[in-house]
């Protein structure tokens, strides 16, 4: 019951946040000098044709009105054009991409499995590697292991992901010929192929984020190890592994989880660079294409969806928080 109230309260604020995001996105693209109608006008493009195309897509109206129409479409669905060529987009309609001739909702749903596969795998991997490295580093503080781990994480922090990605492809894909270099195989079709195609993107993303987590974990761990209850745990005669792995880690994870929520959320909204480099048809690639084509409905749709995921991830993190930290329990 209390959970229900909590969830509904959060839902309201989530929707408010999403509204603001969609509004900003709309406004931003109205300010852009580029004209979506121009792109779908064809060549040569006469002013009359341009006006026609604009009117059909609804871009001739003031943007506030466009925005309201968009919001309405989510609830009731929308129809563009009229007669035999009319396009209907069923509710919940997050817009219709005229360039891809597909409802945005459908496009997003189609891309979700790819992005989720990348994001979840990578996140699991980097959490394990990052937190592991951070813990070892903190426990063995000042030793060569610590220095090595932190140097490694420095590389990870500073390396641009496209660099790591492409070098990874060159090394593991071409030179060593170990893994496929790109493409995506649905899990349902071929689980092994799915795994095999995702190994490299996972590792690349994990390598980069793990570095950040290693630093974060190390810092938190150093703090926690100075706490009295760690001394108590040791005084109980627990093995050091248990002291660190249970008593300290649980407390360390609390702040780590916050950051993780943000990161995972934004990754779920599209692992843009990884998808580009590894030619994975995920949400990030979709967004990038949409931006390149000024496919406004698609941009707004994907933006909103990503925002939704990020906000959702944060909400889930708050719930996990309650489990990790009883003091914060709802």
């Amino acid at each position, binding site marked *: 019951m209390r959970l229900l109230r909590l969830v509904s309260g959060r839902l309201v604020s989530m929707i408010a946040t999403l509204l603001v995001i969609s509004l900003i996105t709309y406004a931003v693209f109205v300010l852009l000098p580029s004209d979506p109608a121009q792109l779908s006008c064809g060549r040569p493009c006469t002013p009359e044709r341009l006006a026609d195309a604009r009117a059909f897509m609804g871009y001739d109206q003031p943007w506030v009105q466009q925005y309201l129409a968009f919001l309405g479409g989510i609830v009731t669905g929308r129809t563009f054009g009229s007669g035999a060529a009319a396009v209907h987009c069923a509710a919940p309609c997050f817009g219709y991409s005229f360039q891809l001739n597909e409802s945005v909702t459908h496009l997003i749903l189609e891309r979700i499995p790819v992005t989720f596969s990348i994001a979840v795998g990578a996140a699991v991997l980097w959490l394990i590697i990052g937190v592991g490295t951070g813990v070892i580093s903190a426990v063995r503080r000042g030793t060569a292991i610590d220095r090595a781990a932190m140097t490694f994480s420095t590389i990870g922090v500073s390396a641009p992901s496209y660099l790591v990605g492409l070098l990874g492809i060159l090394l593991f894909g071409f030179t060593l010929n170990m893994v496929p270099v790109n493409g995506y195989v649905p899990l349902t079709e071929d689980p092994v192929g799915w795994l095999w195609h995702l190994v490299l993107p996972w590792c690349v993303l994990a390598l980069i984020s793990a570095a950040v987590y290693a630093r974060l974990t190390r810092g938190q761990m150093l703090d926690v190890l100075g706490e009295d*209850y760690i*001394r108590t745990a*040791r*005084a*109980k*005669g627990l*093995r050091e592994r248990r002291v660190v792995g249970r008593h300290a880690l*649980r*407390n360390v994870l609390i702040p780590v989880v916050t950051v993780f929520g943000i990161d995972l959320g934004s990754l779920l909204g599209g692992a843009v660079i990884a998808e580009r480099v590894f030619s994975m048809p995920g949400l990030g690639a979709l967004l990038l294409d949409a931006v390149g084509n000024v496919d406004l409905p698609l941009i707004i749709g994907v933006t909103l969806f990503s925002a939704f995921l990020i906000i959702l991830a944060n909400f889930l993190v708050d719930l996990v928080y309650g489990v990790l930290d*009883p003091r914060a329990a709802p």
Partner: protein
Amino acid sequence: MTVSPTEPHLTKATRSPLLAVAGLAVEFEVDGDTHPAVRNASFELHGGQVLALVGESGSGKSVTAMAALGLLPATARVSGSITLDGAELIGAEPSLLREVRGGRIGTIFQEPMAALNPVFTIGDQVAEAIRAHRPVSRSAATARLLELLATVGLDDPARVARSYPHELSGGQLQRAMIAMAISCDPVLLIADEPTTALDVTVQAGILDLLRDLRTRLDMAVLLITHDMGVVADVADDVVVLRDGQVVEQAPAAQLFAAPRHEYTRALLHAVPTLPELRLAEPEPATPPAHEPRPLDTSAGTTPVVLLRNVVVDYPGRRRGRPVRAVDGVSLHIGQGELVALVGESGSGKSTLGRAIAGLVPVTAGTVTVAGVDVGHASRRELRTFRSQLGIVFQDPASSLNPRRTAGASIAEPLSLHTDLRPDAQRHRVNELLDAVELPSRLRGRHPYEMSGGQRQRVAIARAIALNPALLIADEPTSALDVSVQARILELLRSLQSQFGFSCLFISHDLAVVEQLADRVAVLHRGRVVEEGPADDVLRAPRHPYTSRLLAAAPVADPAQQALRRAAWRQLTTASS
């Protein structure tokens, strides 16, 4: 098996010591310099005995105990020898240390709230201690755990086991801590200030428990305390530590009766005494529970602090009902008057203090300090008012910013309210350190690098830095050994006579209250149940609650304390 407290002395010569500390020295490295904390300390503890480690704050008591467990931080350098049943502990293999910790030596730490992991339930933490040393099943561990929690006198073991530390009171936590410490039937229990954080009634219960455990389980106890009353209550032998060195070791009775070392004598001399307990004529039948003695307006001058029907509610957790911490208190403190506030834990003492300082909003009633209505004062008025207010918080450790040095903390009011030049500030800080008996080298230390008593004195120095008109002192000497406490109390007294400030003195140590206070107010469940001149209230309590409180306070005399203990038991059984 029943063992009388005196029996171990008879067998002492025939048994080899359980714990032998020989030539122990501990040094800390701080910024490249070494600071000795313990020098060449030697003493012995035999099975089934209670050895009290006493001495002034910062004398190395806790460090000695931690050395035995191998739990000192990496900055410590330890030499000498500590043996447990003949096995050397210093520099021992990790596996041996692990077996000793928790298995053979149980430990109770100073602050239970900090010493328990906030994210695990009590049951979880205690069961873990059991399973660390015994290969028992989960369910067996649970059974044992409930048994242990019951053993330490917790009412509802199942509920306590399910609770997280923040959901329990200090006394409950301390008991749980003890349960954890004795879970593997250790041969030795190290108890570092096991009752400091607790009020006298709870303290009496815990001491009773320790005594009982010692007897029932034949456990030796290394008791660290600065409270000579506690020592008198439970100790068989006493080791007096000063500045890291053992100055005297003797059986308790002998020590109290005929202290050999001068320092010991000074220590005992400094112990404040309570008047003889007169429990003869309690009037429990119809206590004027809600009728405090009428306001004493004889002082003539306008009171500095005037409380009228003050109610303070804390908002409850998430839609729960609010907690009423103070419930209709009327109180006044005259100019230059020292009023003591006593009462058991959770009775609302600290809350009242905070309400006077304007730190918690008052739900109803008015708080007037020096003519300022604290509840409705502007920010500016509050600021001016606070420049004349000194406040010592109950928990010295947390009232100091962990990132600032002692010097910086003490200088804070100076820089806030005066325009002293850095040199003058420095000078004043040194003066203040002197006044609270701290060496000036502590200036640059962080709270983490000081002992509990040292931190408390820093907090006091900060509170008196501006010679306040009103001092609110919340258990200002709880972590201090008697000698330092005596000097601090002396300091307070002299400052007060010099500057004539008013003082609200919150304490659970009735002996101290007796020495210091002009008037005493007894708080029970947020209400003042008894109020009057110190002498009257402490000598002839009218309210049964006051009587119980008085009986629970230990005195530094084993013989007399035995009597009081009996009286207290009688009272508690009568009231429950």
